[in-house]
């Protein structure tokens, strides 16, 4: 069971939340090609390591926010508001695809 620190409610159990997938995807302009739409809608880095992702406190306050989480250890490195860029410490941490096994 993950303990996730909601930006409003503090640490709560994982089953109060839903994960909304990868953060910081930018919607392409309406004139984008089919290939660009496919990249936006379907294609993902799917990293083995650090992943920036959206979560919602669905069974609590309802807020959307961002997590920086490691997809092998599940360690949460940062929690930050939905409209913000990831904190500098996370930006500098390279996704460790060859990290822990």
């Amino acid at each position, binding site marked *: 069971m993950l303990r996730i620190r909601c930006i409003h409610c503090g640490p709560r159990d*994982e*089953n109060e939340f839903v994960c909304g997938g990868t953060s910081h995807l930018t919607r392409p302009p309406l004139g984008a090609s*089919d290939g660009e739409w496919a990249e936006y809608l379907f294609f*993902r880095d799917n990293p083995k390591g650090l992943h920036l992702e959206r979560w919602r406190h669905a069974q609590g306050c309802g807020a959307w926010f961002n997590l920086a989480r490691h997809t092998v250890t599940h360690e949460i490195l940062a929690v930050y508001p939905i409209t913000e860029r990831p904190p500098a410490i996370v930006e500098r941490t390279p996704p460790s695809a060859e990290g822990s096994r």
Partner: protein
Amino acid sequence: MTSGYSAWSLLRGAVGGHRHWPPAWPAVEPKSRYDVIVVGGGGHGLATAYYLAKNHGLRNVAVVERGWIGGGNTGRNTTIVRSNYLYPESARLYDFSLKLYEGLGKDLDFNIMLSQRGLLMLAHSRHDLDAMSRWANAMRMNGIEVNLLDRAAVANLVPALDLSPRARLPVIGGFLQPRGGTARHDAVAWGYARAAAALGVDIIQNCEVRAFLKDGARVTGVETSRGRIQAVRVGIAAAGHSSVLAGLAGFRLPVTSYALQALVTEPIKPALDTVVISPGTGAYISQSDKGGMVIGAMLDLFPSYAQRGSFAVLQAILASTLEMFPSFSRLKMLRHWAGIVDVVHDSSPIIGPTPVPGLYINCGWGTGGFKAIPVGGWTLAHVLATGENHPLAEAFQLERFVTGRLVDEAAASGIAH
């Protein structure tokens, strides 16, 4: 190398204290060059190598596996085989797989313990039943036998199910695919490995791919933890790690990796002789030949490479399983595990070329890879050997995510995701 397995060889072994059995396949050092390298020694990779040798006459083939064969999802599933899919493209693909399973024990000279005990899908509401009627009719249109059942027929088939008026999860009917069932997962991996090795395939374990060798854009081999190996063509069959390998080769996939967990109880006397799936709750259960209740869950719905499941999902799945089967509440859990599955948006596979010349992939089976091992190997072998997509795989290409021609089986794969 390999001796035939038969009642006679068992009897002969009994006389000699079972000391005459040779290894099922030889441990080999990688050669410097192969016609085809298959990355991933799970069921799909081993089946690919076997069919490359058997169907296409390619003997200079290697399977490279980071860990040990069958140690990933092939050893982490719930051993269910079925072909209850909605769309014609999927029905053709999965029923071909089931037909290969039906002859596989004989083909491989290895008892895969296929048990076509029937696969029952439960309807908990009128809406479930309406949707299942449509689903079952689609299966019949595709030539796959299925029987719609009312509540009495379900009660007759599965006496352990709670069908009392006070049941938390009422059952009002369902459908049965009589040819569905289970097969022994380790036997499928070992059978393919042994049969492939007998045809000359090198099976190289503890050999991790760290990079792809390239000449210009074209893949010409792999750099591994056991050295550099050249190949004319390379195939990837790595399930939940497909994106990691694609990243090494320089492209992305429409895949997200999730943990899918399952558990098995202590063995008990025979109490359940069908596979029971409850799509509404995400729970599914069958009894193994050893007697353990094998219980599967829905996905842990956040990206994971952790090979362990979340307690929240385990708790939810056990709650719904025990609401359906109250008499199982005293069973002790023996083992609990998770595999990392490669989920795509439409829950259909990708079998064919990648954007990188010389590199081919079989992935995207998501939560349902085990049942598809024979056809996944068959079709990946075809494209690796001939350069042309197998007709069964034509609808399951990477381009469908650009053209929008998805084969949306998300509803038909039996669990909610």
